[in-house]
């Protein structure tokens, strides 16, 4: 306990390490929050859910805070449902079982940008006679635009932005533009209160119309949305626990094993050394990434399998060689000789004298491993071999890249996961470099 407090006191002397520790603490908090807020199953369901889950979300919307930096404010998504606010609907009985069901969606539009899309979704209840609706648009300056009249099936979607007849009534403008454009200046939005009026007629006493109006915005939430309308913040949140656990477990596991193996190989020499070196030679020739790719393609993309194989191959490989050459130098030192002379056991010599001696020199490598495994996960994901269920930062990058986010200017989509990856990587690296200087007496004060 005192050792830890001591260490923390020493770390305080290095501002970069304090920053690093804060970043790590932030990431851990974020991970815990993610796991509590969105349980594993929910995260998987959300991320793999298609249109059904995300139908009321805009496509490729930027994060909402973009509005703070631009003079032209972009709209957020507006969703209005008669099921949630029944006041939107007025029913007038016309006798003979016929009733007029009028729905008025009224909203105040004070944004400078046009919306991305407009849609109306109907669900209706009837037995034989299909209800009929007439849809009308009323602008703030009182113009009335007839949009469509249709008879409804039990579930009907009227995608206003895709109505090809509408532009003819809107001076050739796309509906989402034309409906909002100022008649004097078609590139400007006419701000004010708009109304979407749905005049419905039902022909049976029990029949009913419910409608949902969605005005898809151009900005959404704190992280924006992707090409499948998914809220990116879900993957950003869930990427944190995945990255942290992958990085920590694999890095700590492999580097400790590697160091112990190298120490044993050097200390015992003989056939133990021979076997470890032979295995090492073979594993060094096995190219890690192609092997992981084959495993991912042919067997399983599960993150546990992939990282397990990484750890297995990571124990051997180039690391063990540099550890070994360090141990070889140390082995001939006088104090090891002295330890042997006073009769120290093999175990004691390896763990009390050999390993502590090389820790200082090896710590940079050791610590940069945490980020390197975090990035390995991202690398695999970018190659399209990410875990098939879990949303991760790497998968976000992969989606962004394969959808050409850089070419189409959706930079937020690339930058958000990238910044989190970088933060995690830098956080660990900063702490690691400070630890290096603390543990390495020869570097102290540099």
């Amino acid at each position, binding site marked *: 306990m005192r050792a830890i407090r001591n260490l923390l006191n020493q770390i305080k002397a290095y501002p970069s390490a304090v920053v690093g520790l804060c970043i790590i603490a932030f990431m851990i908090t974020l991970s815990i929050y993610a796991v509590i807020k969105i349980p594993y199953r929910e995260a998987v369901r959300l991320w793999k859910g298609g249109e059904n889950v995300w139908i009321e979300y805009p496509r490729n919307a930027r994060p909402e805070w973009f509005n703070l930096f631009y003079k032209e404010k972009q709209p957020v998504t507006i969703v209005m449902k008669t099921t949630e606010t029944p006041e939107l609907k007025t029913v007038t009985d016309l006798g003979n079982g016929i009733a007029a069901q009028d729905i008025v969606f009224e909203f105040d539009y004070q944004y400078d940008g046009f919306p991305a899309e407009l849609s109306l979704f109907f669900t209706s209840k009837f037995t034989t006679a299909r209800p009929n609706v007439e849809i009308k648009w009323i602008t703030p300056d009182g113009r009335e635009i007839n949009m469509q009249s249709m008879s409804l099936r039990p579930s009907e979607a009227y995608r206003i932005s895709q109505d090809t007849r509408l532009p003819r009534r809107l001076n050739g403008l796309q509906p989402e533009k034309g409906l909002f454009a100022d008649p004097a200046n078609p590139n400007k939005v006419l701000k004010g209160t708009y109304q979407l009026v749905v005049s419905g007629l039902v022909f049976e006493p029990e029949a009913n119309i419910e409608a949902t109006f969605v005005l898809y915005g151009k900005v959404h939430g704190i992280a924006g949305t992707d090409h499948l309308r998914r809220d990116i913040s879900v993957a950003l949140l869930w990427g944190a626990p995945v990255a942290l656990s992958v990085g920590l477990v694999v890095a700590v596991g492999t580097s400790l094993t590697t160091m112990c193996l190298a120490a044993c190989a050097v200390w015992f020499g003989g056939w133990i050394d021979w076997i470890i070196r032979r295995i090492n030679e073979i594993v060094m*020739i096995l190219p890690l990434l192609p092997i992981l790719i*084959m495993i991912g*393609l042919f067997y399983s993309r599960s993150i546990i399998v992939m990282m397990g194989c990484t750890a297995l191959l990571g124990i051997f490989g180039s690391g063990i*060689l540099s550890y070994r*050459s360090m141990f070889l130098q140390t082995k001939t030192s006088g104090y090891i000789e002295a330890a042997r002379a006073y009769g120290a056991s093999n175990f004691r010599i390896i763990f009390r004298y050999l390993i502590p001696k090389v820790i200082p020199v090896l710590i940079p490598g050791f610590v940069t491993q945490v980020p390197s495994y975090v990035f390995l996960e991202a690398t695999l994901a970018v190659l399209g071999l990410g875990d098939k269920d879990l949303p991760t930062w790497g998968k976000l990058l992969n989606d962004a890249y394969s959808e050409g986010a850089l070419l189409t200017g959706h930079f937020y989509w690339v930058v958000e996961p990238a910044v989190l990856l970088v933060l995690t990587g*830098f956080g660990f690296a900063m702490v690691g470099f400070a630890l290096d200087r603390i543990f390495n007496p*020869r570097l102290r004060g*540099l």
Partner: protein
Amino acid sequence: MLSVETARERAVPAARRSGGNLWRITKYTLVKGTTLLITVIIAVYLTILIANMGGYVDKMRESELRFQIAEEINQNEELRLLTVQERKTYEEEVFRVRAKQLGLDRPFIVKSFIYLWNGLTLNLGRAIHLTSDAGSAYVDNIIGERLAPTLLVMASSQLLLFFSAMFFALFLSRRYGSRLDRLVVAMAPTSAAPAWFYGIFLIMIFAAVLHWLPFGGMIDAPPPPGFWAKVGSIIKHLILPISAFVASSFWLSSYYWRTFFLIHSSEDYVDMAKAKGLTGRAIERRYVLRPTLPTIITSFAMTLIGLWTGAIVFETVFNWPGLGRLTQQAINMFDTPVIVGVTVIYAYLLALTLFLLDIAYAIVDPRVKLGGGENGS
């Protein structure tokens, strides 16, 4: 692998030392070469075992054989007249016989050695979807075509990085504690992100926003006429990949080497040299660089090894038409023969790197010259 521990400090008679140096180095190299060859064979065997655990190599061979037979039938005037049914039975018949000849019906253990031989000789048959730019569908042709671009970008960035970082580090170690030195220490953690990651940012800044440099690729499409215009275009396309590489590793490498040199320049013999009044440069060359040369070479080889496999995403991000991009394409198209071929090629490249490392060792490490290599492997 480097049998340093067997190099005991022996008192070697002067005559013996001068006489057998060349022979020893040759022998050492031969021993190392053979060992590596055996290692490569085992590594490729493992690769094939992994690939075939799901039966993919089997399928690969069978479809290759069926394709051949169908081709032969198409080219044979008489056989082309057969009805569909007859043709099918004939095909099956030939397939059965040929499969037996090739040993496809034999137990897995026997087959795996056949695959091993094919893998080692890169006789992997046809790719399923991919073709080389020259139009060949053979895996070895495809891979051969992609090797040069990978070598170009990797070698140039790696050499630049290695030498610039090392000399910069030597410079730093002379004036440690300076502002520049502290800057390097502060910047070292930025190397936690791999080169492709920096690549994304560089592309975003210099290609997407500023439009100064191309998004990716190796040469303008269509290629400009004239040799020098082509070279210029390639250099223009090389700038971002190389910058990404250097940006990702320069600070850490400098930091690593600086620390390394600092530790080694506090050795007693360096102090001794200083006491003798040697110049800083002479001390660096003779007392710091010389004894640490083996470590430096090892480290260089390790970065090379890291780079071979690191190329895959790197080239994908930069759309660089090398081995890495090929791998990525093969993944997307599920082109098994190409993937196995690439893995084998990477194994060869790694082995070659290690072999060159060993030779370099034989040249710089006096302990090898003195006969340490005899107990080689």
